[in-house]
């Protein structure tokens, strides 16, 4: 069946006045994203530095108690809730919902300027598990870029929402996976990574020409080089998993894309201690659970660090933001791994330090802070695992971003305390007629040895890991964190409340209910001199699926198919 891609804008109503200030503004290009103008949020992580920080200070510790709802937008059909990071450029807010529904809204009033709903292969979507949510779009060269669950990358005209190009990148019908992650625009290239860790594929990351939509390069995270091939015994690379399902960043000094890769498959191996020669995928399994540096123009691998060689616990590197810092004349890259270990690198991905945010962690004894070497790793043979594994498969941290505030010098990051019982089983990858999950175990969530499951917002030195303060939550928050020049830290929690904390002390200064749990992004931007905080609400993604059976309470009635964009400003 031929797909119909058509623009779907609003018909102009006589007398309507839609002021689209983007018509007058400068184009969003690499330089503009890099300089990160304070009124905008031009890329997923806020800027290429990935701070999730806004320098705006109109809203600050002195007046945040006056923060109230300015407007709300409901995207509709929010199956699995809303998980996206909004973007803002020149007074227009862009965001996506489930099924890659894409909106451009007047940032001051919430009025819809245009909307675009791609017609997806819904029979395919019905067969997917990590679906149909979307984590966001990218802006660049007058276009909005969004990925789809059926493996397409689409470019929409920023002003009208008209489709400029539409490129199919993944054979999703065969591989089951598609794109949930936001793309990254840099230097004329749109980069997007496939889902894949749980499936028997090879986890590609793509570089696409922003003007034409033609694929420029493809990097296979599973055995993407000859050297890497050797780290997969028994041809296990054929069904290796991998992927790169969250956006990384662009290092303009080195002409490099930094990206985190996903875990290998099966998630749980039966190798026992001798994982180099035994089990489902003997070897280190490059380049899964790694941070990689690719040349932005060619996609060639320039450097990498594998955070967890032979990852036997599903602790992707794909989850983490790449925080680009400088301190005492040294340049660093701080990157959280899903295990809850935070890696500190130099700009060539040489390990400088490793610290841990998760309190309950036993999948390794430690990670050597000087070398990144795993110490006392737990590899399992087939059968029941005697001591519950910590952290739980949902991670010591998840893909929701932390925030670095250059004024306080602190990294505000959410940690998660939960564990799991586990019975490892030998599995055979299912690749036909369509790829299926390949987990490798029966498992169940369990409380940590310290007592109850909980989450915590930590204020930490990003390089040393020294903790300044901590705020605890009864259930781990799954939304991203925002910090601002007004000395505020915003955390949207899982029960549905957005909190604002003093960035220095952690004192709670303001909170407001959004009506349902959060598992997406939060940004700040300004229009005509007025500052806004925009947050998506809407629960129902992977990690949140466990909340109703585990915690009960408000989660029992919380919808998993609804959501809203809520925008705040000072009254």
């Amino acid at each position, binding site marked *: 069946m031929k797909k119909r891609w058509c623009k779907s804008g609003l018909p102009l109503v006589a007398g309507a006045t839609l002021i689209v200030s983007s018509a007058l503004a400068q184009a969003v290009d690499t330089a503009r994203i890099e300089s990160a103008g304070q009124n905008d949020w031009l890329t997923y992580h806020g800027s290429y530095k990935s701070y999730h920080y806004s320098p705006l200070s109109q809203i600050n510790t002195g007046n945040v108690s006056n923060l109230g709802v300015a407007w709300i937008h409901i995207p509709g059909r929010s199956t699995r809730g809303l998980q996206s990071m909004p973007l803002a450029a020149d007074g227009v807010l862009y965001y996506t919902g489930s099924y890659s529904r894409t909106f451009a809204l007047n940032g001051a009033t919430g009025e819809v300027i245009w909307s675009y709903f791609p017609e997806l292969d819904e029979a395919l979507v*019905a067969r997917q598990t990590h679906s149909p949510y979307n984590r966001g779009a990218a802006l660049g060269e007058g276009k909005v870029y969004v990925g789809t669950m059926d493996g397409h990358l689409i470019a929409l005209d920023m002003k009208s929402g008209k489709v400029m190009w539409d490129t199919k990148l993944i054979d999703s019908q065969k591989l089951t996976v598609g794109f949930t992650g936001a793309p990254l625009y840099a230097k004329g290239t749109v980069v997007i990574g496939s889902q894949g860790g749980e499936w028997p594929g090879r986890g590609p990351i793509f570089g696409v020409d922003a003007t034409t939509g033609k694929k420029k390069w493809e990097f296979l995270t599973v055995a993407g080089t000859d050297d890497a091939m050797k780290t997969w015994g028994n041809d296990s690379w054929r069904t290796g998993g991998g992927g790169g399902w969250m956006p990384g960043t662009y290092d303009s000094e080195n002409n490099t894309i930094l990206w985190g890769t996903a875990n290998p498959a099966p998630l749980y191996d039966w190798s026992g201690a001798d994982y180099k020669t035994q089990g489902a995928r003997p070897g280190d399994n490059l380049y899964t659970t790694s941070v990689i540096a690719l040349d932005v123009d060619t996609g060639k691998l320039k450097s990498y660090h594998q955070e967890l060689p032979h990852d036997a616990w599903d602790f992707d590197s794909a989850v983490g933001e790449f925080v680009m810092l400088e301190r005492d004349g040294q340049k660093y890259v701080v990157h959280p791994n899903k295990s809850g270990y935070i890696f500190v690198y130099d700009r060539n991905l040489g390990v400088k330090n490793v610290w841990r945010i998760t309190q309950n962690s036993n999948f390794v004894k430690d990670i050597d802070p000087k070398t990144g070497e795993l110490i006392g790793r737990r590899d399992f043979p087939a059968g029941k695992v005697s001591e519950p594994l910590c952290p739980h498969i949902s991670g010591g941290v998840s893909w929701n971003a932390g925030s670095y505030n250059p004024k306080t010098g602190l990294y505000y990051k959410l940690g998660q305390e939960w564990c799991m019982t586990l019975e490892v089983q030998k599995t055979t990858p299912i690749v036909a007629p369509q790829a299926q999950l390949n987990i490798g175990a029966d498992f169940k969530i369990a409380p940590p040895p310290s007592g109850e499951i909980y989450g915590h917002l930590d204020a930490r030195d990003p390089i040393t890991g020294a903790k300044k303060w901590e705020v605890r939550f009864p259930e781990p928050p799954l939304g991203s964190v925002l910090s601002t020049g007004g000395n505020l830290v915003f955390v949207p929690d899982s029960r549905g409340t957005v909190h604002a904390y003093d960035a220095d002390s952690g004192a709670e200064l303001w909170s407001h209910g959004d009506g349902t749990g959060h598992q997406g992004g939060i940004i700040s931007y300004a229009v005509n001199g007025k500052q806004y905080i925009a947050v998506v609400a809407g629960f129902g993604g992977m990690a949140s699926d466990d909340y109703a059976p585990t915690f009960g309470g408000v989660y029992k009635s919380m919808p998993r198919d609804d959501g809203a964009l809520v925008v705040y400003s000072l009254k």
Partner: protein
Amino acid sequence: MTLLPPCRSEADEPRRELDFREVGLAGMRLARTITTLSTPTLAVLLTISALPSRAQQPPPSAPDSEQLDVGQLFATTCGWCHSAGGRAAGKGPQLMDTKRDDDFLRIRIKNGKEGAMPAFGAVFNDAQIDEIIKYIRALKPSEG
């Protein structure tokens, strides 16, 4: 460069909202409609609806020598949501001691549930789904 067909103006055709009923197996609405039909009609409809569309291949014919190892299937796929091999509630409901009847389980496995469970109608044939249902009915608490 992908060339796009010209779009018809909005006057000719309003923006197309996707309706569950158009998309075959997906969606509870369709499942509800199906359960009100007689069993033979139901069987025919499910067989037809399980047929492949687009690039799908037909469900595998029943293997004569190999039986579906449902325990392994849970460790591979189902256990992602049905915790502890189906014995505990997690992302999905507990299957052990489920009150749902065989028809419900069969339809759910084939059609899935939007936003909750994938559709496996193209992956398993009727004999294999029978095996899965048998496994579910036989689930007991694990020892120890």
